[in-house]
C-alpha cells in the first residue's frame, strides 16, 4: 500500500477523535481557564507522543506474519465495532453523536465544579478535564497510527496523517471558537469503520497464511465489498425501522459516545 491511503485513513480517523477532544477542550477553556486547559492538553499530547515513540518502533520489530495476524484481528474487531455503531446511528437505532449537546453537558459540569490549584496548575478541574478528554480520544488514534504504521513499516506516514488532522481541527476550532457540530461525524466514522474492517480482514487473513487473489490488489476489491455490505445493512435496517410504530432512540443510546 502506498503512503497516501495510509495517511488519508489515519487523517480521517484522527479528525473524528480530534473533533470530540476539541469539544471537551473548548468547554474547559471557555468556562474555566485557558492556561490550565492548555497545560492538560499539552501533557496528554506528550503522553500520546511517548506511547507512539515507544510502541511504534517496538511493534515494528515483530515478525510481519505474526504482526499481521494480531494487528489484523484487532483492527477487524475495532473496525466492525465502529461500523456497527455508525450503522445504528445512520438508521436511527442509536442517537447521532451531537457535539453541540455534548458541549453543553461539559459546560454545565465545568461551571458547577469548584476551583482548586495544585502545583503549577491553577485550575485542577480544567486541567484534568482537558487531559482526560485529549488522552482518551487520542488513544484510539494512537492505536490506529501504530497498527497501520507498523503493518506498512511506515509509522512516520501514519504520524503525519494524525498530526495533520489535529492541526486542521485545532485551527478550525480556534477560528470558530465553537464545537464543530456541522462536521458529518457519523459519515466519517462510517468511512473509517469500512477502512479499518477492510485492512483488518486483509492483514488478519494474510497473517493466518492465506494468499489473497491479486495479492495487495485484493484490497481494492475488499474495500468496496465491505462498503456495499455496510450500506446494504443500513438500507435493510432503515426499512425495518420505518415499519416500527415508534422510532425514538432510548436515553441510554442518546448519551453513549
Amino acid at each position, binding site marked *: 500500500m502506498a503512503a497516501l491511503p495510509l495517511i488519508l485513513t489515519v487523517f480521517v480517523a484522527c479528525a473524528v477523535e480530534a473533533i470530540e477532544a476539541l469539544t471537551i477542550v473548548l468547554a474547559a477553556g471557555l468556562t474555566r481557564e485557558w492556561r490550565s486547559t492548555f497545560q492538560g492538553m499539552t501533557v496528554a499530547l506528550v503522553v500520546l507522543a511517548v506511547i507512539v515513540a515507544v510502541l511504534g518502533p517496538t511493534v515494528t520489530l515483530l515478525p510481519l506474519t505474526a504482526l499481521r495476524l494480531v494487528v489484523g484481528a484487532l483492527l477487524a474487531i475495532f473496525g*466492525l465495532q465502529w461500523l456497527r455503531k455508525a*450503522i445504528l446511528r445512520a438508521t436511527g*437505532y442509536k442517537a447521532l453523536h451531537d457535539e453541540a449537546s455534548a458541549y453543553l453537558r461539559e459546560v454545565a459540569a465545568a461551571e458547577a465544579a469548584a476551583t482548586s490549584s495544585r502545583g503549577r496548575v491553577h485550575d485542577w478541574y480544567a486541567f484534568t478535564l482537558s487531559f482526560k478528554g485529549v488522552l482518551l480520544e487520542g488513544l484510539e488514534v494512537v492505536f490506529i497510527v501504530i497498527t497501520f504504521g507498523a503493518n506498512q513499516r511506515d509509522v512516520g506516514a501514519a504520524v503525519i496523517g494524525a498530526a495533520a488532522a489535529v492541526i486542521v481541527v485545532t485551527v478550525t476550532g480556534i477560528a470558530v471558537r465553537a464545537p464543530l457540530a456541522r462536521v458529518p461525524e457519523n459519515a466519517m466514522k462510517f468511512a473509517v469503520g469500512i477502512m479499518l474492517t477492510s485492512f483488518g480482514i486483509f492483514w488478519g*487473513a494474510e497473517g493466518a497464511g492465506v494468499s489473497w487473489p491479486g495479492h495487495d490488489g485484493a484490497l481494492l476489491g*475488499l474495500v468496496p465489498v465491505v462498503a456495499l*455490505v455496510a450500506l446494504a445493512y443500513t438500507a435493510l*435496517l432503515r426499512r*425495518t425501522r420505518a415499519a416500527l410504530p415508534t422510532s425514538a432512540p432510548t436515553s441510554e443510546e442518546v448519551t453513549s459516545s
Partner: protein
Amino acid sequence: MKRLRSIGAFWYDFVVGDDWRVAVVVVSALALTALLVHAAGVNAWWLVPVCAFAALGWSLRRATSRG
C-alpha cells in the same frame, strides 16, 4: 483493586466494544483459516470476510431487536 478493575474495563471496552460476540467470531474465523491453510492446504481467503459480514449482521440484529 478497584483501579485495576476500571483499567481492565477500559481496555475491554476499548478493544472489544459493545458486542463481544463480534470479537469471538473474528478470532475464531482467523483460527479456522490458519487451520485450513496449514493443515488442509486450503487457501481459504474468503472465510474471514464472510464471517466478519455475518458477525456484523448478527450483532446489528441483536442490537435492533432489543429495543
